């Protein structure tokens, strides 16, 4: 009986910790979704590029991944802004291109980023080994890995600051206004093209942060992004399109349910658990977690 409780506790804690990092990546996607009304399928690729930046900082300059993250974030913010300003905005301006088709551009960006990275780094698997990579803390008999705990704490801190930013600052309020009703926001004097640019940059920076937090315990290769795109897509739908808190809770729910599924069903069906939830949400709760709160 004791053992069963330890196993349960370990499953729940690890699931929630991992979910926290999923949340951070998904929040980036949902922000972009809210303001631009398109799913950014290049999101995973941005996570991947962010991870590579942190990786270079760590292997070439010996910068710890958690500090390298603060280099990766501005770099990706800039990259996101540039992508938005010079690529996506140009498409948005053309009326004849339907928003659904703008998504195709993000697929193209994803391919360019992936192949570009492959050109420089080959397809090799890379990883950052830190002194604490495989350290664990023992909670009773439960072993929790240190990078998972640090990652979760940083991810939640970022989520909190992002929430403060969106609710308390002018810029944040403008972002929320644009996402609620773009036309009305423009009439109120919000510079919507600047807002979309900043939002995309912010989304990209959050993607980089999420990726960097995973780096000490995971690994990277040019195609690692698909994993994150799929995961954040599911979380974005689960949380309700464009809802930051929805995505944060959605990430935790997915992390937890995957972990429970892995322990009590089988690890072979780990992804199935997430996808089944995805279908159930679409069928019975199309608005996601956000619609629950609104009711």
């Amino acid at each position, binding site marked *: 009986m004791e053992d069963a409780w330890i196993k349960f506790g370990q499953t729940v804690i690890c699931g929630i910790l991992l979910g926290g990092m999923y949340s951070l990546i998904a929040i980036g996607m949902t922000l972009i979704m809210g303001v631009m009304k398109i799913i950014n399928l290049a999101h995973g690729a941005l996570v991947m590029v962010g991870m590579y930046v942190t990786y270079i900082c760590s292997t070439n300059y010996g910068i710890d991944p958690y500090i390298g993250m603060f280099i990766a974030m501005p770099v990706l913010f800039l990259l996101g802004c540039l992508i938005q300003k010079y690529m996506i905005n140009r498409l948005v301006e053309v009326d004849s291109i339907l928003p659904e088709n703008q998504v195709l551009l993000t697929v193209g960006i994803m391919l360019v980023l992936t192949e570009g990275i492959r050109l420089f780094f080959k*397809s090799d698997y890379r990883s950052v*080994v830190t002194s604490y990579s495989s350290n664990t803390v023992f909670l009773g008999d439960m072993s929790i890995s240190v990078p998972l705990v640090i990652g979760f704490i940083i991810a939640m801190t970022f989520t909190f600051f992002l929430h403060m930013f969106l609710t308390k600052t002018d810029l944040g309020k403008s972002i929320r206004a644009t996402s609620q009703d773009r036309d009305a926001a423009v009439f109120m004097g919000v510079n919507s093209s600047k807002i979309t640019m900043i939002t995309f940059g912010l989304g990209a920076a959050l993607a980089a942060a999420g990726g960097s937090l995973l780096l000490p315990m995971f690994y990277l290769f040019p195609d690692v992004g698909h994993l994150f795109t799929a995961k954040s897509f599911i979380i974005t739908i689960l949380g309700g399109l464009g809802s930051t808190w929805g995505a944060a809770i959605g990430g935790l729910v997915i992390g937890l349910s995957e972990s429970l599924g892995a322990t009590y069903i089988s*690890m072979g069906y780990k992804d199935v658990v997430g996808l089944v939830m995805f279908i159930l949400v679409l069928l019975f709760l199309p608005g996601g977690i956000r619609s629950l709160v609104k009711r």
Partner: protein
Amino acid sequence: MKKYRKILTVLLLVSFLALVTTGCGGDGDSADAVKVGVILPLTGSEAMFGEMEMNSFEMAYEELKAAGKTTVGGKEIKMMYEDDQGKQDVARSATEKLVNQDKVAMLSGGYSSACTNVIAGSAQTLNTPFLIVTGSSDDITRQGWNYVFRGTAAPASKYTGAFWDMMEKVVDPHSVAIIFENTDFGTSSSKGFRTECQKRGINIVFDQAYEHGAIDFKPMLANLRSTNPDMIFATSYVMDASMIVKQMKELDFNTKLFVGNGAGYTMPEFYQNAGAASDYVASTSLWVPNVAWPGAKDYFEKYKQKFGKEPDYHGAQAYATMYVIADALGRATDLTNEGIQKALKQTDIQTIMGPIKFEDWDGFTNQNKPNTYVVQWSKGKLEVIWPEDVKSASYVYPVPKWGER
């Protein structure tokens, strides 16, 4: 000004014509070539292996060219690489493109079992000889497909020849746990392992598949630990492999022996990522650089020097395959599909993967009988521990507990 423009136009026209004619010349050349289509995952998550195999193909090709062995019957052998992205549908269209459009004389490549299966099926319907490099799921050469040949790769369930020998003489486990990636390769090899266990009366206490690319393997490992097996047998690709042993260390989960089934557990990346956790992990293997076959060590050194990276058995497979191709095409009496198929069937060649012959045995068609080894990691070095006559170090069994290392 006008004059310049005229000159410029003429120049442009001339260069355009030159381009067109060289284009024609190129085409003319390739009509005189014997084309060999190679399908490998050059992008996607398996791209690392595809790259290594393509590099090895090219390296072998250059050596053969220097030795004058790339010209058969006055025609130059021309290698044409196609990317299957690790996806079955892409693999199929690549096969059809190579056969129908490029009119290749034969096909090679095939990394993942899933893709190899698709290529083999299409090659058989198109009556084009296909020499497999890596794809090793059992059923590929069990369909009676006479155009499909597998030389450098063992059927997944036979990776374990040397391993079982060692089990009988050294380990003698009473209970084992099986974990495997839920792909063709993982399923096929664990199926073979399961049958062997049943035959030998070994108790399987845990048997679970997992999804490739997971971050947290602890749920599975915690379940596994509670069954307390004598030995763990795992089939994984490289990064999952290192995640698994690292997390075993984190859980302080000790077992007498952890055996990987080739693939991920023999790659240099496994050690780079897993670090000290890789110590004492054993694995089955089809090839090791310090194996006794002539040329093996040379290949390893040359590759390392040329590409700045250590190759593993996947590269060796591609390298040896190139030699088999050149040998078969050189012997073929006529370069038709049937002629090449016949020449392949009569192959009897010594390569860096050992002798290669395509035989029909145990329900397999055109399948080489594999040489297998058991290797064990020791401080970042892969040592051959079995069979004893070719060993480079003695085995360590049972392995020390995490706390005592």
